């Protein structure tokens, strides 16, 4: 179970998140929705350690943790970025195995085996030796999912997963998210402005409201 308590995040004097509280149960899919600029992505970035919060606590199974200082033994979050951010200079298989080899110190065969299984589960068999530019948008996204999963996170976070996809692919990523919930028992957080998608896949929907901030020039 992940709990966020009184999370406050400011950029300068602009308050983006104000004393936000949120609980996500294991194996649950949470969709974070809200208008543009309300801080959905900021919340995700705080949770994944890309931004430091100004105050508040993150608790994983009642233990406080600092997302900006992750430990390799207990990776809480994995992230699938809106633009996927695959490494263009590495093949698909290297994209997936790089961090497990360097960070988790997995040996080559172990990392390869995990990666191949993930590629198989995500319908990407045969793409191992290709480079990211040779894949379609939907395929790149699935590689990004595989890359995040290879680090064995507790929670997988998606930033706007449907924004660049056509309707068929949108349905497919929805299926994958549900498949990860049912087969991999994965807890997932989806930041999206796509309300239909949120209703389709999420167990819980959390709305971030835009704060009335004072803008300082």
């Amino acid at each position: 179970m992940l709990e966020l308590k009184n999370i406050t995040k400011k950029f300068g004097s602009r308050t983006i998140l104000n004393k936000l509280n949120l609980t996500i149960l294991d194996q649950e899919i949470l969709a974070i929705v809200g208008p543009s600029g309300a801080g959905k992505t900021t919340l995700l970035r705080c949770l994944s350690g890309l931004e430091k919060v100004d105050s508040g606590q993150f608790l994983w199974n009642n233990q406080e943790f600092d997302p900006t200082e992750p430990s390799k033994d207990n990776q809480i979050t994995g992230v699938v970025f809106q633009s996927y951010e695959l490494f263009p200079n590495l093949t698909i298989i290297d994209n997936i195995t790089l961090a497990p080899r360097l960070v988790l110190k997995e040996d080559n065969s172990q990392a390869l085996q995990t990666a191949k299984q993930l590629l198989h589960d995500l319908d990407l068999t045969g793409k191992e030796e290709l480079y990211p530019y040779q894949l379609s948008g939907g395929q790149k996204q699935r590689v990004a999912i595989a890359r995040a999963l290879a680090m064995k996170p507790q929670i997988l976070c998606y930033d706007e997963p449907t924004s660049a996809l056509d309707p068929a692919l949108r349905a497919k990523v929805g299926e994958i998210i549900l498949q990860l919930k049912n087969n991999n028992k994965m807890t997932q957080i989806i930041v999206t402005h796509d309300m239909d998608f949120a209703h389709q896949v999420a167990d819980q929907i959390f709305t971030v409201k835009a704060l009335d901030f004072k803008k300082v020039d």
Partner: protein
Amino acid sequence: MNYIISIMPSLLSGAKMTLILFLWTLIISIPLGIIVSLGLISHFKIIRAILKFYIWIMRGTPLLLQLIFIFYGLPIIGIIFQRYNAALFAFILNYTAYFAEIFRGGFQSVPGGQYESAHVLQLTKWQTLRHIIIPQVSKIVIPSIGNEVINLVKDTSLVYVIGLGELLRAGNVATARDVTLVPLVLVGIIYLLMTGIASFILKKIEHSYSKWK
């Protein structure tokens, strides 16, 4: 033909000096250029200001002036270089500035998301640089570095002015002595060979980066 054979040793020994200057300048300036470029994109204002000033001077004044300044100028205030050291020093200072600007552009054109995705995968700064950023920067900068490398081959002829026995000087001496164009034509051919080989190697390197985009 006999004449060509007779002047070849002096031309080749000149070409050897040219090559030595060329190689040492590259070997030292490229890593220094990377370090300076990291300084240029660092958060330390003072370092950035100093480096920008240095680059402005190096790119804003002629390399010929820099050579003359170091070899003939600095002794006036008591700093004396040997000819070869003066030449190498001037080239390294000058080329480091150009390489630094090229690498700065390279580093800045890698999207921020690449650093972020490496960060959430818990790669260290060094692992991120080594496996993700430097390969991408290399691909971006190779064409521009290639231009500078070709320029460097030709710029080495400037050390003529401080009396260092390089290729152009060897050719000029022979032409003046023997009143014939042949040595200068040969000098031209040797430069073409050197720039040709450099271009060929650069093309090969560029090609090895073309398998990904």
